């Protein structure tokens, strides 16, 4: 196909052609970035936590008081919860991934370091490993005699008796890899304060931070510290997937039975917790999909409108070409090639623009660089869209009979 006549025709409609190119360029740039943003959100929403997500239910109680018998009451609660049919394990803990609150601590590998090396999330509670269903890849879980009560830990801190504090800690593999790349972390020391060191006795494959997602999303540590209901604890219960609702109902009844005055702040399955945590991301991904579709539709309609106009305007010349021997296929091809040329120019411009928008997003919204794969994908999408949109008007052009040439309008 000779593109020279097409170009010379377009030159006569410079302004209209430029408009179409600008529209395609802008659409291309925005759609590329929007698809990238959607991908980012989906990736975030698929984040792995390492816990047995489909087997957990939780009940969060309001932080009522620092009663002296808080520990005993929590122990009684847990004993009652473990009696429920179908419960595999239960614990009182300070936080959950995607839960409302988080405990964090700065960690050094050398007590003389000025700044913390990393910041890690701190899980407290008895039986964290079996209850959350996280996987130990090296070392061992805590022995029963290693656990201390939280109140005792605070008492020791007040006294300044650092040596009596629980000394062992479990950390995640990503955290170990960050602190001691390529080394065996078992037996290594971490420092949470100048005079408080902890020994790594086990490594967890994966355990996401408590609370929300933040930098170092898998940097978590577990301390052998029993947590009591006084601290606004969450009771976390592990059971079979199909038993969750019934276990949760039974758990609430048991807890109310033990103390009718307490306030349940939140309850549900871990799946619900995850679902709720990502609701904004889901909404934003939905909006982005909607915007992409709307943009593509508007652009397609623009192409249809302009192509129809050009076909109508060139009715006579199409007739002349047909009379001079051009086949229907030639005419069809002419409009398709014209659209291909315009779209290509739009895409080239659009790619530059897409890159510019991406740079803007990098600076203002801390987004990563747009991967190169989005450029060919965006280009294919717009070429396809252009060809689909122009097909109708082009077929109409191809159907123009040669006899039109002989009519004087």
């Amino acid at each position: 196909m000779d593109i020279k006549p097409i170009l010379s025709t377009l030159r006569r409609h410079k302004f209209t052609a430029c408009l179409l190119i600008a529209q395609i360029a802008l659409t291309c740039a925005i759609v590329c970035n929007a698809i990238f943003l959607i991908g980012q959100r989906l990736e975030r929403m698929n984040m792995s936590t390492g816990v047995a997500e489909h087997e957990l239910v939780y009940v969060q109680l309001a932080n009522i008081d620092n009663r002296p018998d808080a520990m005993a009451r929590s122990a009684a609660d847990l004993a009652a919860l473990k009696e429920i049919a179908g419960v595999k394990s239960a614990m009182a803990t300070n936080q959950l991934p995607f839960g409302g609150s988080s405990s964090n601590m700065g960690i050094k590998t050398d007590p003389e370091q000025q700044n913390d090396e990393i910041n890690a999330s701190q899980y407290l509670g008895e039986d964290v490993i079996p209850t959350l269903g996280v996987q130990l890849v090296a070392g061992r879980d805590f022995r029963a005699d290693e656990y201390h009560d939280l109140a005792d830990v605070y008492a020791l801190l007040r006294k300044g008796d650092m040596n009596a504090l629980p000394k062992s800690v479990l950390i995640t593999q990503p955290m170990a890899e960050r602190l001691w790349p390529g080394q065996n972390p078992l037996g290594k020391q971490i420092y949470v304060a100048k005079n408080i060191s902890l020994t790594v006795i086990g490594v967890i494959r994966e355990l996401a931070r408590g609370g929300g997602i933040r930098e170092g999303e898998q940097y978590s540590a577990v301390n052998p510290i029993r947590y009591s209901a006084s601290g606004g604890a969450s009771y976390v219960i592990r059971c079979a997937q199909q038993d969750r609702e019934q276990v949760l109902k039974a758990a609430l009844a048991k807890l109310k039975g033990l103390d009718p005055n307490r306030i349940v702040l939140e309850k549900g399955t871990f799946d619900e917790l995850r679902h709720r945590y990502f609701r904004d991301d889901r909404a934003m991904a939905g909006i982005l999909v909607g915007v992409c579709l709307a943009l593509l539709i508007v652009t397609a309609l623009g192409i249809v409108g302009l192509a129809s106009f050009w076909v109508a305007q060139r009715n006579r010349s199409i007739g002349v070409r047909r009379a001079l021997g051009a086949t229907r296929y030639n005419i069809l091809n002419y409009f398709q090639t014209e659209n291909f040329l315009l779209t290509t120019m739009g895409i080239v411009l659009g790619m530059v623009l897409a890159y510019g928008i991406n740079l803007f997003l990098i600076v203002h919204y801390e987004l990563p660089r747009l991967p190169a794969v989005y450029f060919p994908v965006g280009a294919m999408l717009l070429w396809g869209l252009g060809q689909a949109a122009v097909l109708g008007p082009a077929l109409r052009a191809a159907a123009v009979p040669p006899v039109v040439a002989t009519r004087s309008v």
Partner: protein
Amino acid sequence: MFGYYLDMAIRSLKHNKVLTVLMVLAIGVGIGASMTTLTVMHLLSGDPLPGKSATLFRPLVDPDPTPERTHETPMDVMDYRSAMDLWSAHRADRQTLVVQSPVKVVAAATNVPPLMLMLLSTTTDFFPMFDVPFQYGSGWTADDDERRSRVAVISASLNDKLFGGANSVGRTLHLRNTDVRIIGVLKPWRPSPLFYMVAGGRFAHGDTADFYGKPEDVFVPFSSSLEINDGNFQQFTCWALPKIPGHLIDAPCEWVTVWVQLGDAGKAAAYRRFLADYAAQQKSLGRFTHAENTRLPNLMEWLDYNGVVPSDVHLQTWLAFAFLAICLFNTIGLLLAKFLRRGGEIGVRRALGATRGAIFAQFLMETALVGVLGGVLGWLLTLAGLSLVRRQPTPYADMVHLDVLMFATTFALSIAVSLLAGALPAFRASRVAPALQLKTQ
């Protein structure tokens, strides 16, 4: 002439219905999307206390003596001692302290089950300083702050929930283990954002929708609340471990927010000096190590610094306006095609004596009409879009509505967009050479 152009425009739009519908749709959808996001943006980025915000300041000092922290900027809130020193110095026109904590609330002689609510510990100046509106009763006095009176002010929604909206002044509320007397009930009050609690925005990575939550339900004198809710206070951050969790008075923790009101620039400058002197004095006492690290941003500067408008909302606004731009290009293309196709008609009108200006005006009228129709559609779509936003589980969802300003902006924007779209095609149409057109007919 106006009537004639209008008549011609209506005829022309009717003549090519598909094209008209396409153009109205493009403008309407573009306007709907951009006005929905613009309304949310307008709501979230507005001044919560217009006319007064420039006189409200947030003093910041750096009490953290540890070398670990970078100390580039002071923390967003401060420790108890610094806050009390600044507050009791009374060097500003008004000054107040605010701290939030969760508390268990039971109303005496009602059968509403115990509630877990947010308690705001503050001081007498809070209510006049932030123009908090009262429905019944009033706030407490400086004397109540001094004597740790067991008094409380409650929100309109809590009053509705507990007392069915009746005047509850004088009734008793059970806060945790303490009885307090209700002395005031607020009118519905919903500042956007909840400006006096805004802190830590720079750590939120743009995820700042929570700054737009509702005000607390119970307000109690700061001094009283320290006793009532001891053990339930939460630190913003600590530079060393607190000895008793939730008891922060003598803890090495930053947790108290200070606000001051300074009527004019002179007073602000004087207070800035006072703040620097205070920090220097604390350094000489050995309590501070970074005395030079003081700040005094005013309310709007503070909101800016915290980047209160969520980054998702920014992104949506950008997207919507890019979308409007594409709709605009689309409409220009369609109008150009439509107008230039009427070369014959233009030629005849010109030959019969119509000036170029007349042709231009005629076509512009047609695009303005498209703009009005697009505006109506855009307005309807904006209402639909806003009701969609209201159904989102975001903290600011309940505040979203279309005010008069945004309503007017909708139509102004749509007519502006359509005139912008129509100006060039109309100009090109008015340049059509009549002789050439007539010849080719």
